[in-house]
């Protein structure tokens, strides 16, 4: 097989690379990305006291420490059989919503938006956040920075420290908030709701009203009919902090709903010969390789997935957007629910619907009279031996699984991070994008790198946890013939 590699020119960030294999006819046979697996996390943790985990795991990755802190805190609740009081859960969720607002806002304006707002074929020098801001106005840029600043402040206030929260403890939360702090958070949440609405309007004006982008949004290149996974509450509404895992099939019917604790019975991991990455898949369906369709156990866990598994949204404005999302993209209904949207580029829109939900939910929680309660901790019981904690990270469901002896010393640690869920879908998207660009052994250079990057950018992969960061870094494409000799090379600094 001929192999094409896309390599970062420098090793600024580890060394992710995309490998594209061609068949004898020069058509794309297989595509995937390789990233060096970080080593030894389990050994690093085993032998430590379990209660250190919320502080250790939030160091795994610079992008979503809050998600790890929260999953770790929840795993400890289970390990020490201590169900936190309602106010503690509300504070956790409040912090978590502030984190989501920041993360989703940043992704849209800095990473995802440029493909639409500037255009997928624009030179990379313009296709970035600065380009977006120049197009939509400096005031919007200032709003983005202000949004990050006020939500970072909320995370610091509620979590006890900026960036790496420290307040999560087994059975609750270590720090109440004062009435004055609550009032500040309410003000921030109100601004978040307005900013989310503004961002959705911007998406409307710049993307939905532009026929070229509108078409891109439903483009077959990035369409895969997979299973979808997300956390839902008792009413089938997405919840970022807690819930049961719901999996729906490509036709929208529910395949399973289970407690996150049961993940190992539902999901298995597959190592394929051409990659050392472990691809998670649904055990019930089975592994058929990196392919989509109802017969393949490949699933997606992303903002789009979370909408696809939902009956409805839990907040009023997000519900309106949710309906508009599915109606606009032409989804019918089945059993009172919308049919899933399979076009992956719609993930960018789904992310903004979630942004609005997170902002509204944050406001609800901040206004809850119980949020200033000081009853924040349940007394831990004896060590149960096993604890699984699960939250929705912005890029997909995140699971922490710990086992400990009677003293609370860790004996086993297993994490399934958000991005890992999407390895197979990302490979599908990269393969499809590559297939459009490479035919009969000929490589169309124009826009190639970006079309392939778009394929993984929409998943907002954070490989710092699973492996290593892999974003808009310089890329290098090498095309090799069957003997391995380089016949074609493209570089982008």
């Amino acid at each position, binding site marked *: 097989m001929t192999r094409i590699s896309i390599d970062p020119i*420098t*090793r*600024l*960030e*580890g060394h992710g690379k995309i490998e594209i294999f061609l068949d004898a006819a020069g058509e794309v046979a297989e595509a995937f990305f390789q990233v*060096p*697996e*970080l*080593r*030894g*996390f389990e*050994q*690093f943790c085993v032998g430590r006291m379990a209660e250190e985990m919320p502080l*250790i795991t939030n*160091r*795994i990755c*610079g*992008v979503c*420490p809050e998600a790890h802190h929260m999953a770790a805190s929840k795993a400890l609740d289970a390990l020490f059989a201590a169900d936190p009081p309602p106010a503690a859960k509300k504070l956790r969720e409040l912090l978590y919503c502030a984190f989501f607002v920041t*993360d989703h806002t*940043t*992704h849209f304006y*800095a*990473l995802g938006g440029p493909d639409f707002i500037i255009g997928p074929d624009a030179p990379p020098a313009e296709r*970035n*956040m*600065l380009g977006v*801001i*120049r197009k939509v106005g*400096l005031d919007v*840029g*200032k709003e983005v*920075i202000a949004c*990050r*600043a006020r939500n*970072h402040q909320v995370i*610091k206030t509620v979590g006890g*420290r*900026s*960036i*790496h929260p420290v307040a999560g403890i087994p059975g609750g939360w270590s720090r109440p908030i004062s009435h004055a702090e609550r009032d500040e958070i309410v003000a921030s949440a109100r601004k978040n709701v307005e900013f989310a609405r503004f961002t959705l309007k911007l998406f409307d004006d710049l993307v939905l009203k532009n026929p070229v982008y509108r078409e891109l949004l439903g483009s077959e290149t990035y369409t895969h009919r997979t299973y979808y996974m997300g956390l839902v509450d008792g009413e089938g509404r997405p919840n970022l902090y807690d819930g049961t895992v719901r999996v729906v099939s490509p036709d929208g019917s529910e395949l399973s709903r289970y407690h996150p604790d049961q993940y190992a019975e539902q999901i298995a991991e597959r190592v394929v010969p051409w990659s050392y990455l472990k691809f998670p898949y649904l055990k019930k369906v089975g592994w058929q390789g990196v392919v989509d369709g109802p017969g393949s156990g490949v699933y997606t866990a992303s903002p789009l997935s979370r909408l696809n598994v939902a009956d409805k949204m839990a907040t009023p404005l997000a519900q309106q957007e949710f309906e508009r999302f599915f109606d606009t993209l032409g989804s019918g209904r089945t059993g009172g629910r919308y049919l899933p949207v399979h076009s992956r580029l719609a993930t960018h829109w789904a992310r903004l619907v979630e942004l609005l939900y997170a902002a509204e939910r944050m406001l609800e929680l901040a206004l809850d009279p119980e949020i200033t309660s000081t009853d924040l901790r349940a007394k831990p019981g004896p060590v149960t031996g096993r604890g699984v904690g699960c939250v929705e990270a912005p890029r997909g469901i995140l699971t922490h699984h710990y086992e400990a002896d009677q003293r609370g010393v860790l004996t086993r640690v297993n994490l399934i991070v958000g991005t890992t869920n999407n390895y197979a879908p990302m490979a599908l998207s990269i393969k499809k994008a590559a297939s459009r660009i490479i035919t009969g052994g000929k490589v169309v250079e124009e826009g190639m790198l970006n079309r392939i990057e778009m394929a993984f950018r929409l998943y*907002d*992969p*954070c*490989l*710092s946890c699973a492996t*290593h*960061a*892999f*974003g*808009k*870094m310089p890329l290098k494409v090498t095309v090799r013939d069957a003997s391995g000799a380089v016949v074609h090379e493209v570089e982008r600094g």
Partner: protein
Amino acid sequence: MGTVVVGLGNPILTDDGVGIKVAAAVRELLAGTGVEVVEAYSGGLRLMEAISGYRRAVIVDAMTGGLPPGTVLRIGALEGRGTRNLHSSHDGDLAGALRLGRELGLNLPELVELVGVEAGDVETFGEELSEAVRAALPKAVAAVMAAAAPGMDPGGLGDAATAGGAGERS
């Protein structure tokens, strides 16, 4: 405000934590001088936000540029030769974030300098540095001190550089 030193990296990823360890040593040496020392864990916008409001910034971070492990370089932030964590996969690199910040009228440092320490291992979880990188700590501390507090007598750096602890300020 005056000068800030930023220790950048991941303290649980072996040599990727070198910037954090250098910052801890420098914090002791600079106590009472008015130079602030902070830690940061990702590049891009976060890093730009961490240095906004200061007149000068010195960022110390691991490098993976194929040099012998333990090599210490002092480089201009925007000279093209980056260090490991300047770029965030979530929002872009420091240079782009700085351009954006300036365009938005944020109060950003006139001078941003980097001190890079070539890493040996950035893929294994661990809190200790590899031998070559640990041996380079005094040199890295001296380079950061020279950049952050050029007038100070660098005497006694060796002791401070090998002192442990990586307390976090926020």
